[in-house]
Structures are given as C-alpha cells and as structure tokens.
C-alpha cells in the first residue's frame, strides 16, 4: 500500500495550530520574564548573600540542570497535589518553564557577574554603597550585556522545550497537533507542519533578539546612558 500525503487537511486546521503557537509564545515569554526575575534574585543571593543561602541556591541550580525538564513538570503537576498544591495545566506549565529557565539563567548571570571588574565593585564600596546598591547600580546592567547572547540562546531552548508541556495537557502547539492528528489520522503531515511552525518561531525569535541586542547594546552607547541615569 502506498501512502499518499494529504496536506490539505492540515491547511483546514491551520487556525487551531496557530492558536496553539500563540500559547507557546505566551508561555515562553512569560516564563522568560518570570524565570529571569527569579534568576536575578538567586544570582544576587549566590554572589553576595549569606553562605547557607548561597549553598541552597547552588543546590537548586544543580538540581534543575541535572534532571530532565519532563520529570520537573511531572513533579509540579502530579506530585505536588499530594501535598495540597494543585495547579491548572497551563499554570503548571508556566511554573515549570519558569523554574527550569531560572536554573539555567542563574548560572548564566553568575558568569556575567564574575566578568564585571572587581575594581568597579570596590569603587562602589568606597562610595558607601550597600551590597544591594552595588548589585543594582553597578553590576546588573553590564552583566546583562555580557550574558545577553547566552540568554537569547537559552530563550530559544526554552521555547523549543515548551513542547513537552503537552505531556501535562497544556494546550499549546504540540498538544493541539496531537489532538488534531489523532482525530484525522494524518500524523506525519500535522507533525511536519507543526515542526515548520516551531522552526519559524525559533528563527523569528532569534532574529528579533539579535535586533534588540543591536539596538540596545551596539547602536546606542549604553555607558553614556548609564552615567546619565
């Protein structure tokens, strides 16, 4: 029996696929913002906080980076309800993605913080800045510029990894593709098109993030603006 490809049926369902892609984008953007916020706090604690807290952050980062994202999702969605923490699928997906991203971003930010010259931190000390003030006014922005390319790559990985939240029934692109292929029996065609949509999204995200880098860090002169502030 020869298999005949039928992409017409995928075309008919394209709006639903795009709905899913939209949720993928929203989840990724939300997890990026939340995860980066968490990571900024964690990187500060690790860099300048009391030693036991720093060790706790290190353990957290190692746990996130050395266990599969899928299992982290299972723990959030299936295990936590046993101790009374119950989430909707989309909430669990956003939480899982944010926590996962925060683990990697903490490590990326740490590298950026270590790259800020010590003399600048000492200059802050001599001006009587507190640790938090030094972190906020001297360290964070140069560190962000250093690690921007790494964070941008990590964002693309976050978006591609988000396909796994289909396993806890969040209704993003992969889950919608799963549903459509199982009702139409056109698995290969649907996955082929969904893969193309992911590719377009990751290329688009990369282009956009590169453009932002150029606009913020290359074209303008951030040092001047940092001083003006």
């Amino acid at each position, binding site marked *: 029996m020869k298999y005949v490809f039928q992409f017409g049926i995928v075309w008919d369902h394209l709006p639903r696929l795009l709905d899913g892609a939209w949720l993928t984008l929203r989840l990724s953007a939300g997890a990026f913002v939340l995860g980066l916020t968490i990571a900024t706090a964690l990187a500060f604690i690790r860099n300048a906080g009391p030693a036991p807290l720093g060790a706790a952050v290190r353990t957290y980062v190692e746990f996130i980076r050395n266990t599969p994202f899928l*299992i982290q999702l299972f723990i959030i969605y299936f295990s936590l309800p046993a101790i009374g923490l119950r989430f909707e699928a989309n909430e669990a997906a956003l939480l899982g993605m944010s926590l996962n991203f925060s683990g990697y971003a903490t490590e990326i930010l740490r590298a950026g913080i270590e790259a800020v010259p010590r003399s600048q931190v000492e200059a802050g000390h001599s001006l009587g800045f507190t640790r938090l003030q030094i972190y906020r006014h001297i360290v964070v922005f140069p560190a962000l510029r250093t690690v921007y390319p790494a964070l941008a790559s990590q964002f693309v990985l976050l978006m591609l990894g988000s396909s796994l939240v289909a396993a806890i029934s969040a209704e993003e692109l992969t889950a919608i593709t799963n549903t459509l292929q199982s009702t139409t029996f056109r698995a290969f065609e649907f996955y082929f098109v969904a893969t193309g949509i992911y590719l377009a999204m990751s290329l688009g995200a990369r282009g956009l993030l590169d453009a932002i880098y150029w606009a913020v860090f290359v074209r303008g002169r951030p040092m001047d603006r940092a001083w003006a502030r």
Partner: protein
Amino acid sequence: MSRDFEWPEFLFLLGALRWTVVLAIIAFVGGGIAGLLLALARTAAIAPLRWLAAGYIGVIQGTPVLMQLFLAYYGLAVLTGIRIDPWPAVTVAFTMYAAAFLGEIWRGSIQAIPRQQWEAGAALALSAPSQLRHVILPQAFRISIPPTVGFLVQLIKGTSIASIIGFVELARAGQLIVNVTFQPMVVYPIVAALYFAVCWPLSLLALRLERKIDAALGLKRHP
C-alpha cells in the same frame, strides 16, 4: 487495591535506567560519527558542503526534539507501511539530534585552533588532510572534551522525551509505577534523583576538565 512503592518497584526503575543509558550511548556513538562528518563539512573548503551541514544543524537546533521524535516515528511508519515499535524511531531521532549538537560543538573546537597552526603544517609540506589529522584535530579534540561531556548530560536528560512515544526508559517506568502505586509524591522525586545521580557526576567532570584546560591555556576563570 494498589501496590506500595517498595523494593521491587525501585528495582524496576533501576532496570529502566539501563535503557536510558543504552539509548544515550547509542545516540552518542552514532551522533558522534555523524557529528564528526558534519563538523568537517562545516569547516570544508567546498561551499555547498558547508551550507548543507549548516542547514541540517540549523533545522535540528531550531525545532523541538519531541517533534523530531514524532516525525521519525510516523515517518518510518509511512516509509515501511506498518506501525513500528518505538526502538528504531528513538534511536534514529536521538542520533540525528546528537549529530547536530556534537557537529556544532566540534566545529567550534576546530575553528578555535589558530590559523597559523594550519599554515605551520603547510610550511612542513603536510597535505591538507594530514594538517587536519596530525595538527588540528589532536588540539581541537582536547578543547572539545568539556562541552562534549556537557552535551552528554543534555542527551541523557533528553532521552526522557522518548517516554512520550511509549519507549520504556526511566521516565516511562516512573509513570508506569505511579499508575500502579498512586504515589507520585514518592516516585517522581526518586526518578529525578536517579537522573541526578547519573548526570551530576558528569556535570562536575565537565566543569573540572574545563578548568584544567583553561589553566593549561593560561585563561583565568576569575578575573
């Protein structure tokens, strides 16, 4: 009446961990061979070869592994006309995935070797393949080890995705045990701990090797 999570259930997880490791090794070896060819193609003098390799790597790195897995699974089914078991699909998909990442890591390692090394080889009248084999690759190999070990960790974690198409490895075994014990609060953390026990030592090894090579190259980690 459901079973409790006890010793036999734990042994079942350990047995499944074996398939996680086997899958990772197959993908690592197969992907290593294909990745070396990709890295050579990416640094070749012939432009179309470079474009082809770059295109392949771009597509694999720009799409989710899960989608690659589905395409391999249903693609093989289309080709052979029958519903296949997950084994061929997961090995093909993870090998192709590993090839793209290893190829890109090794391309970076080859290009990190200064051009003068090629020129020194040429000055000694070595042919281009000899320059590559005797001058460039031995040096590139050394600096490629830490990121390669780091990718191995990513690959081991990534094999958990094979559970989604029903391949029984550690993650899938965890789901099966949860289905009979109804103790997700016990089982999934144990599954996570097993992954951690395999991945963490490798991560530490990668970090140590990286520091050692940085020191050998005179790079300081903490300026």
